[in-house]
């Protein structure tokens, strides 16, 4: 938001780079003296004092210039000749008048008389020479002249200006075009959508559907039509199970959509490929799972997740076999999607196999799932992971034990509490509360009285209140003798509205 484009006018700063205000070497150009030139002509040509030419080139009082000599000229005057020797001045037939007009603009120059007479003869050739290029009458020629006399920087900027102008116009056209195209596609879609919807529903209700009519098959050769048909079929399939779902798969195969899905799945760009995986998985094209297996641990996260989801759906017997790969990279987002895929095929694997995994993400997954699906047989392995050196794994193990809410590992948790970091301490208390086991009462009491961190004390007080009547009595008796802080903690813990 604070991101204003503060660029305008900024560049004005170097607009005056070529003014007479400052002089540095960048502003100079070289002029090579021709055989028919003298200093005065050069000074006229560049609209600068003769003295300046002398001083720029470190020449002494009695200098001479010779043909072929290189003179440094300050550049601001580079476009001046065109203005000086403009068309109306050319109509004057005496060079002298023209010279006087121009010399008016060179006020402070003292022109030696000898030089004056000398130039009078030579003046006309200069004018006529200039007039070859400067008889610019039309606008485009003036522009061309300006362009030819400009230096590289100006040319670059001119070019960029034109480029920007063109790009703004083309962006406008792009927007217009896109809007029109979108409108056309929407129109095309809406035209076929209803028809396909009816056709698919009819297919579902027919007892023994025979074959897909030729007309539809023909239409499906068109990309847009096919997209509409496929997405309609898939979205309907997602909400159906059993016979009707199988019928839709049948329709998918008979209308020849399978080969397009396979083509998508082998496409070179990842987003098309992922879409292909999705279609193959939903339509249960099991024979193509080799196509998918290569991407189970792809660098591209979207592709990887889609491949894993497809794999789960195509291999209901051992859906999570990719977790055996010690290098596999699982993100929570990926696992969240894997869970959805598992739900679709209605399979809950035993996570015991991956609990001891050395791959951290796999171990975390197995711990979490053991808790979520309450796989009580795995308590021993989950408890073992409480000793892990990794903080996150310990955390997940504590959570899992809390979710299972079995009192048995309570002792290990209480022991762990003494050495844990504060986030995990909180989690241990939460898990112990869920176990609601009266053997935790002395522990809670100790935490409530001796811990310094208030959030932990509140949790332990809550643990006492929730466990059973003995705990609650203990809290009440503590309240009688408590100081103000402990009192506030106990009141807070007892308030069930919070």
């Amino acid at each position: 938001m604070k991101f204003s484009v503060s660029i305008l006018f900024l560049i004005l700063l170097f607009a005056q780079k070529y003014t007479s205000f400052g002089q540095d070497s960048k502003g100079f150009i070289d002029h090579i003296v021709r055989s028919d030139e003298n200093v005065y002509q050069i000074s006229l040509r560049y609209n600068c004092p003769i003295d300046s030419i002398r001083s720029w080139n470190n020449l002494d009082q009695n200098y001479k210039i010779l043909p072929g000599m290189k003179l440094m000229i300050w550049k601001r005057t580079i476009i001046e000749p065109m203005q000086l020797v403009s068309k109306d001045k050319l109509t004057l037939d005496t060079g002298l008048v023209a010279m006087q007009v121009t010399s008016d603009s060179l006020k402070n120059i003292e022109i030696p008389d000898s030089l004056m007479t000398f130039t009078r003869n030579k003046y006309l050739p200069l004018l006529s020479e200039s007039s070859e290029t400067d008889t610019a009458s039309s606008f485009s020629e003036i522009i061309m002249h300006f362009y030819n006399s400009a230096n590289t920087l100006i040319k670059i900027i001119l070019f960029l200006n034109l480029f920007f102008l063109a790009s703004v116009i083309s962006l406008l056209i792009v927007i217009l075009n896109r809007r029109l195209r979108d409108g056309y596609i929407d129109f095309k879609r809406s035209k076929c959508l209803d028809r396909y919807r009816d056709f698919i529903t009819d297919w579902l209700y027919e007892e023994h559907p025979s074959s897909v009519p030729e007309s539809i098959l023909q239409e499906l050769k068109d990309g847009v039509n096919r997209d509409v048909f496929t997405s309609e079929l898939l979205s309907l399939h997602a909400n159906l199970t059993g016979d009707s779902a199988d019928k839709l798969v049948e329709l998918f195969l008979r209308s020849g959509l399978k080969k397009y899905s396979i083509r998508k799945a082998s496409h070179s760009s990842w987003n098309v490929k992922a879409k292909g995986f999705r279609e193959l998985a939903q339509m249960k094209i099991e024979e193509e799972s080799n196509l998918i297996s290569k991407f189970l641990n792809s660098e591209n996260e979207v592709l990887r997740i889609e491949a894993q989801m497809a794999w789960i759906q195509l291999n209901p017997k051992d859906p999570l076999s990719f977790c055996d790969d010690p290098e596999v990279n699982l993100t929570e987002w990926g696992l969240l999607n894997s869970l959805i895929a598992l739900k679709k095929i209605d399979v809950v694997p035993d996570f015991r196999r991956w609990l001891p995994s050395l791959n951290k993400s796999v171990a975390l997954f197995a711990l979490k799932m053991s808790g979520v699906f309450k796989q009580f047989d795995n308590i021993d392995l989950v408890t073992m992971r409480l000793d892990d050196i990794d903080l996150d794994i310990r955390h997940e193990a504590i959570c899992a034990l809390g979710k299972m809410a079995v009192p048995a590992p309570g002792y290990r948790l209480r022991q762990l509490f003494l050495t844990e970091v504060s986030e995990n301490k909180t989690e241990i208390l939460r898990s112990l509360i869920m176990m609601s086991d009266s053997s935790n009462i002395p522990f809670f009491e100790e935490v409530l009285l001796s811990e310094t961190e208030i959030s932990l004390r509140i949790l332990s007080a809550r643990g006492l209140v929730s466990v059973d009547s003995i705990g609650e009595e203990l809290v009440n008796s503590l309240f009688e003798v408590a100081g103000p802080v402990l009192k506030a903690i106990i009141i807070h813990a007892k308030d069930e509205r919070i």
Partner: protein
Amino acid sequence: MYEIIKILNFLIENGIFIYAIAIFLSYIVMAILSGTEMVRYMRKNSFVDYSAIISSPYAPPVTILAPAYNEGNTIVENIRSLLSIHYSDFEVIVINDGSKDDSLEKIIAHYQLEKVDFMVNYVIPTKPVRGVYKSTNKAYSKLLVIDKENGGKADSLNAGINISSKKYFAGIDVDCILEEDAILKMIKPILEESQNRVIATGGVIRIANSCKVKDGKIVEINLPKNLIARFQVLEYTRAFLMGRMAWSRLNGLLLISGAFGVFDRDIVIKAGGYDSKTVGEDMELIVRMRRYMIEHDLKYRIVYIPDPLCWTEVPDKLRILSRQRNRWTRGTMETLFKHMTLFFNPRYGNLGMLGHPYWFFFEWLAPIIETIGIFYFLLVFVMGNPDWPFFFLLLGFTYLFAVTYSAWAIIFEEFTFARYRRKRDVFRLLVISLVEPLFYHPLNVWFALRGNYDYLIGNISWGKMEKKGFTDKAKIKK
């Protein structure tokens, strides 16, 4: 004297030349970066079913913190909108920052609140909490209201952080309208990272002026009728779609707008919470969180997502806009100067080598340099002889660059979310991009200068933002 002018002239010319080239290049680089990032994001997003997050055990609990000060006429409506958000495990904490109006009474009456015996744990020191309220109605069990003594927005957020118990919190302005799936979208980047800890996510703020609002939801999106607000639409589109996206890619994002962002509560507390002494507390917090992570050698990311998630009313009067920009400028300056150790400090990686210097030179200094430029040009105009053709060429270049940049931002919007469905609106935006550099931009420069001035003379008043209530707005529409 002449010698001095000559030296000055040399310095300004060459310095400015390099500066101008650098700023243009940085804009081009950012446009390219954010362009590629956007394409990737949109492709990636076409596979996402956000509703899957709701029922998943992987959805982390989130607290929504909404500080409110004198929002009496809209607060009830706004809370209802917050409670209707799509998420599983969340709570809404509204912090009444010692309002002088009847905000608290209204909330208590409407949501059937009663005071609970809450033991406030001041992990981050704040102004005292007068009371914590919960509803007796089970339908509002997710709502918790804090009444505290006035201490400003940062202080209110800190109080909310102290009381919240969930792993993440989303700080929002109470008068913002959140899209229903806003939290889902903000949480996803957190789930996606396995190597780095995502400590904050930011979302796009869009402009709600002239949009139709019904039951706390945007039902029709219109380009603002007011010209000043319309300029800001362009400005926001450019900033969010072109700028932030690129910085997110570089993991150098220095600012998550105070109007909407999700943060890791634990890290915020460890970093010390919001700083209630600065007016730019949102930016300051991000910088401090980054510093905390780097100084403790923790791997982290701050992510930004380009979806339009939060709609807010922007100032439509110059007076209020001026105050807002003034405050932003002061906030930026405070943050930059407070963390000057970062400036080109290689220890801080992208934050020290890119983020901080970028803000220093191109956000804070830009308006100042621009002004110097204008004055310098005037000086040249009076004393010397400007090269007019060259001048106009450069002027044209700058102007066309600005317009092209804006046009690209509009294209980005058009190819991604295309929230302005009417063709007319898009072309109006293009027209706006043509006049923006001539009218709106100089105004912004002026406001920024005023901000600098106020910072120097130590004026730290908040510049209260006056906003019209959405309910009023809806009435006007009818």
